[in-house]
């Protein structure tokens, strides 16, 4: 059936997944892929059990242990009894309900948003959900990928559908090539700095423009990952040859003739000429720099050449108060250059930046150099697969010789739910996605940066401009 009205990429995905659409009700959408982990699923499975329901499509569901898992020696048992209880619950639930599970010892284990793309499960045009807000990562493939709460997890398990009020669309166009030293992480930090932590509230973002198109799939995943930090429902990039080349040959990708047919259909998954977004933001790539967050939300961002903001220059009373609070928590003085700020720890990892390209970037920066005496630095690969590949490339040797801890895969210090946490007042250069108060450990001070910037900071013991490296 010919569509006369030009449609955005998001419109196309939305319309092709409508199960039921009645006025006055949120639309019922079909879910192509449901990713599950141990933190947001126990109560959902319990709910199924109590109501006598089954998982409707075990073939479209896959589970992994990632948030609670220690990243040290896998032969040691999990020490934290509550974490262990949650991990055991996931194991029991998956076994009972027939859901495929990658446990702590699985060669396919890793952070949920790393392993699904690795395995070719994440594909253009899919609706993908998970009880985790960084599900937006998968939008990099031209999918509608969103985070949901535990009750919705239960709903998807039981019905394979999700109720959604249709969000608005926002185009964020990054025009021109990204300057040297500006990575995917800097692009998204720059965007959030520009539009704020609620800038895309109620919207699904489509990222367009040369700087986005030039990114590898891993770079696109980094950008889409942090869409939620701008308040967006989801973020996506239209699929293209870069996307198809990444997917080809992966274990769950379509094969041979089917792959060919798939790419023909995927090629149509882009916004039509003349399609209209509800909002639009235009950014010149040449205005982007390596960024560092200084405060307690991802919108509190300055270029590495910048100074800590002064509350007297805040936009209004609310902003002034929140800056004062942030400066106090982070123990920073206004107007000092961010490059004067010394750090205690470096964390290279998380679903934002723990893929092979991120590890290569860090290794390139630190090769032949030593981690500063005052700094404890670690690298946590995003999956067992990434870890193995990094080791095959000798990246672990470079990092270990430099003085980094080289860990097992997991969410690790992104959110301090496992043994990797900051002590109060410790200051960390982190490649993760949130710098909220206490995020990495109560009283811990988080500065979000790219892997290259984190690696350089580990060597120098303070923030430095990677362009001068």
């Amino acid at each position, binding site marked *: 059936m010919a569509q006369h009205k030009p449609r955005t990429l998001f419109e196309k995905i939305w*319309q*092709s*997944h409508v*199960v039921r659409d009645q006025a*006055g*009700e*949120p639309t*019922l959408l*079909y879910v192509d892929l449901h990713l599950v982990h141990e*933190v*947001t699923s*126990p*109560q959902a499975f319990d709910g199924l059990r109590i*109501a006598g*329901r089954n998982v409707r499509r075990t*073939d*479209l569901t896959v589970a992994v242990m990632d*948030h*609670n898992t220690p990243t040290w020696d896998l032969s040691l048992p999990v020490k934290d009894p*509550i*974490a262990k209880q*949650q991990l055991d619950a996931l194991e029991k639930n998956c076994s009972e309900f027939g859901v495929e599970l990658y446990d702590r010892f699985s060669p396919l284990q890793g952070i949920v948003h790393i392993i699904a793309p690795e395995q070719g499960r994440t594909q253009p*045009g899919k609706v993908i959900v998970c*009880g*985790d*807000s960084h599900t937006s990562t998968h939008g990099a493939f031209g999918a509608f990928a969103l*985070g*949901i*709460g*535990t*009750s*919705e997890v239960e*709903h998807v398990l*039981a*019905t394979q*559908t999700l*109720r959604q009020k249709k*969000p608005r669309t926002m185009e964020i166009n990054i025009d021109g090539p990204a300057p040297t030293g500006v990575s995917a992480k800097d692009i998204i930090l720059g965007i959030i700095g520009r539009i704020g*932590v*609620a800038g895309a*509230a109620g919207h699904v973002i489509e990222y367009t423009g040369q700087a986005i198109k030039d990114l590898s799939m891993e770079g696109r995943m980094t950008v889409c990952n942090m869409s*939620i930090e701008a*308040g967006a429902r989801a973020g996506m990039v239209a699929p293209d040859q870069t996307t198809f080349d990444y997917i080809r040959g992966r274990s*769950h990708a*379509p094969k041979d003739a089917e792959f060919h*047919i798939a790419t023909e*259909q995927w090629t*149509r998954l882009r916004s039509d000429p003349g399609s209209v977004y509800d909002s639009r933001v235009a950014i010149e790539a040449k205005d982007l720099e390596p960024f560092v967050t200084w405060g307690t*939300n991802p919108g509190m961002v300055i270029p590495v050449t910048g100074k800590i903001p002064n509350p007297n220059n805040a936009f209004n009373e609310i902003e002034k108060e*929140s800056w004062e609070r942030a400066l106090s928590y982070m123990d920073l003085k206004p107007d000092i250059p961010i490059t004067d700020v010394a750090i205690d720890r470096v964390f290279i990892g998380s679903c934002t930046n723990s893929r092979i390209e991120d590890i290569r970037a860090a290794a390139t920066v630190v090769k032949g150099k030593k981690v500063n005496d005052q700094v404890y630095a670690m690298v946590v690969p995003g999956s067992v697969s990434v870890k193995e590949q990094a080791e095959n490339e000798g990246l672990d040797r470079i990092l270990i010789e430099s003085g980094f801890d080289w860990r097992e895969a997991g969410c690790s210090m992104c959110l*301090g*739910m496992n043994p990797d946490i900051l002590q*109060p007042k410790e200051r960390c250069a982190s490649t993760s996605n*949130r710098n*909220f*108060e*206490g*995020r990495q450990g*109560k*009283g811990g001070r988080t500065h979000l940066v790219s892997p290259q910037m984190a690696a350089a900071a580990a060597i120098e013991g303070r923030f430095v401009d990677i362009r001068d490296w």
Partner: protein
Amino acid sequence: MEPFIKHTGLVAPMDRANVDTDQIIPKQFLKRIERTGYGQFLFNDWRFKEDGSLNPEFELNKTRYKGASILAAGPNFGSGSSREHAPWALMDYGFRCIIASSFADIFYNNCFQNGILPIIAPNNIVTEIINKSRSDNAYRLNVDLKNLKVWDEDEDIVFRFKLDEFRRNSLINGLDDIGITMQHENDILDFERTRHKHGGVLTN
């Protein structure tokens, strides 16, 4: 789920913007496998000092707000993670209603699954409610979900709010989302038969 039809309660203020889910319920408390028992950890890092004693500076700790069931908060309340533990903690602590000029998306949706009513109100009204909760002794608000109305005893504050009919109806009747969806299982079966190729690409 407990129905929400009408509620009258003491109002407590949280005069901060962008209150995120890491503050509402820090991650070390997400390890439980039950839906209940999170109230004791609500705003943990703000409520308690490092030595574990109550922080007298934190507004919710003040005795005048003890028993509060309505929270008046700054914009973009609930930003950050999708953890439903955030509304669970608020419910468990005793809150049935949150009033703010805006909410983060996922948090807003999560509230409805648990019988907490998030009310979107204009900025100036929220500010006035916050001020009254601080100046008046035992400031209370009445919430009528059937008529989408909020008012205080003196009728200094009176306003109507908007809410999706579907959400309003589900809350009023304490309806379980899954039960409602399964009434339309035929639609799901239809979709699976005609539109969805197993594990493959959707055609349009």
